[in-house]
């Protein structure tokens, strides 16, 4: 288990991340300049934080108060860089064996041999990194980190230097290799897709702080506040006021079907929206969000069966490979909320004969509406 909370200051940037994470892959996800790589450098011991502590599987790697700062090579932390950072003057074998200094010659040779087999590079032991393909280099870099059996593996944007096809192939390869490694992996990435694909857990970082961490779907579906929601692609963020429970008697937009019993509601530009899940006390001013792929397009004959149905028109569409990004403007007072972004499959787009200017109904499923906490320190 990796557990840290520290503070590091450099050139006016204050890095103060705190995270507790378990075995398996955790994505450290955030935009450029969020402090991702600097966090890795602190974890690995190449930068010394001013305050705080870093613990790994019960070992203290750093503790400012106790004056503990374990040097990088004693931390049992592996580091794999973007573009791999292989030693160009050493062969594949030399690269893999680099961290095996304390072992006897035969033991080191056995380990290197086993790693070469695992990486499917038996024939390349005597090759130099310059003679390998991108995928082979990546495997060597991963092998060099894993061969010393670290407790923590840090992957610093390992795929961002590659083209799309190569990236997908290498992600698959890494996913294949990682389960054999029983430790904790921290994958630094600025790609939400990559975070989703590779990691079971996710930590969203921005401005030097971890904004939210937890199981991947929990973070994606239930972002804590507006900043996290924006980062994880829950791009429909609106404001409303929590409704009194007593008022929610089927009180749903446009007099459509009753909401689920026990559901609370939000008053949204004069309309009532059913929301499942717990809500703050009635009268509270709240922000809430829904992911674009969670907005439902409703067939006209099914309108009466659905809660939270809104009528409006499609203002624009962008085809993005296999799906469409649509923008929808509601009729009436909800138009003040701004456009609603919707992602829908190419198939559904075809079936509903969608095109900009079309009138249509959409539904915001009560269980997909998620109330956000107020951003700390934000103005009212």
């Amino acid at each position, binding site marked *: 288990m990796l557990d840290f909370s520290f503070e590091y200051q450099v050139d006016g940037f204050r890095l103060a991340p705190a995270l507790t994470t378990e075995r398996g892959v955790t994505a450290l996800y955030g935009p450029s300049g969020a402090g991702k790589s600097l966090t890795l450098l602190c974890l690995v011991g190449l930068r010394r934080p001013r305050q705080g502590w870093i613990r790994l599987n019960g070992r203290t790697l750093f503790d400012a108060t106790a004056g503990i700062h374990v040097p990088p*090579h004693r931390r049992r932390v592996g*580091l794999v*860089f973007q*573009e791999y*950072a292989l*030693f160009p003057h050493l062969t594949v074998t030399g690269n893999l064996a*680099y*961290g095996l200094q304390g072992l006897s010659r035969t033991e080191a040779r056995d380990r290197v041999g086993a790693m070469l087999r695992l990486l499917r590079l038996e024939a390349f032991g005597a090759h130099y990194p310059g003679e390998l393909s991108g995928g082979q280099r990546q495997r060597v*870099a991963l092998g060099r980190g894993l061969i*010393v059996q670290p407790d923590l593996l840090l992957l610093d944007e390992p795929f961002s230097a590659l083209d799309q096809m190569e990236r997908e192939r290498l992600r698959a390869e890494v996913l294949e290799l990682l389960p054999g490694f029983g430790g904790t992996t921290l994958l630094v990435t600025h790609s939400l897709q990559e975070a989703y694909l590779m990691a079971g857990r996710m930590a969203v970082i921005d401005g030097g702080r971890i904004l939210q961490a937890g199981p991947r779907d929990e973070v994606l579906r239930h972002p804590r506040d507006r900043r996290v929601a924006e980062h994880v692609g829950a791009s429909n963020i609106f404001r409303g006021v929590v409704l009194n429970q007593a008022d929610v008697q089927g009180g749903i937009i446009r007099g459509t079907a009753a909401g689920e019993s026990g559901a609370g509601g939000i008053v949204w530009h004069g309309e009532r929206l059913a929301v499942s899940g717990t809500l703050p006390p009635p009268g509270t001013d709240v922000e809430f969000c829904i992911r674009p792929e969670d907005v439902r397009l409703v067939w006209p004959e099914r309108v009466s069966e659905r809660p939270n149905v809104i009528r409006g028109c499609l203002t624009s569409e962008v085809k993005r490979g296999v799906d469409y990004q649509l923008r929808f403007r509601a009729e009436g007072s909800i138009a003040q909320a701004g456009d609603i972004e919707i992602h829908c499959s190419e198939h559904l787009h075809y079936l509903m004969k969608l095109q900009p200017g079309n009138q249509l109904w959409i539904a915001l499923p009560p269980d997909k509406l998620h109330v956000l906490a107020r951003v700390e320190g934000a103005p009212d």
Partner: protein
Amino acid sequence: MDLFPILLSIRVATLSTILAGLFGIALAWLLARKRFPGWTLLEAVVVLPLILPPTVVGFYLLMLLGRSGPLGAILETAGLEIVFTWRAAVVAATVASLPLVVKAAQAAFEAVDPRLEAAARTLRPAASVFLTVTLPLAWRGILAGYILAFARGMGEFGITLMLAGSIPGRTQTLPLAIYDAVQVNDLAQANALAIITIAIVSLLLFVLGRLPRVRL
């Protein structure tokens, strides 16, 4: 023909290359990899001998290392006499060639990807990383600096004259001997010494051009 100036110059250039090499590597690494208060000042001071007239550098070294100079007095009580001995020629050549080593090695260190060192540091102690990753990747640039330093040591004239004088058989190096020969109109002697100098420097350039490249 008197071989003394040739042997002295080779000795002086060898020793000054070793000294400038050791100090130069340390300074270059500091300048390439660390940021600290006084960094700019240090980088400027290091190149001073390259910019200032040799006589100026020689004059201040004389003030520093002479019998009444602050460092010279200490060294004299320790029984080490510098000024107007062959050691002064070594000091002169070291000071003159230090900037060449530092500049070449600094560029070489800066060309080493810091991520290679970072990856290496997670696997081995810092000293081992320096010896097994940083140096092997920078050695070609560093060696080029050494060869320039050796050539500078062979050719040093101004600082040497100020600090060591030109005492035949004691401190007269190859360039000083050539100058002396010309002064007394012994052109054959000057020519012979000049050709030997050219031969030695040419050999060095040849070696420099043949250094193997590191595969990247």
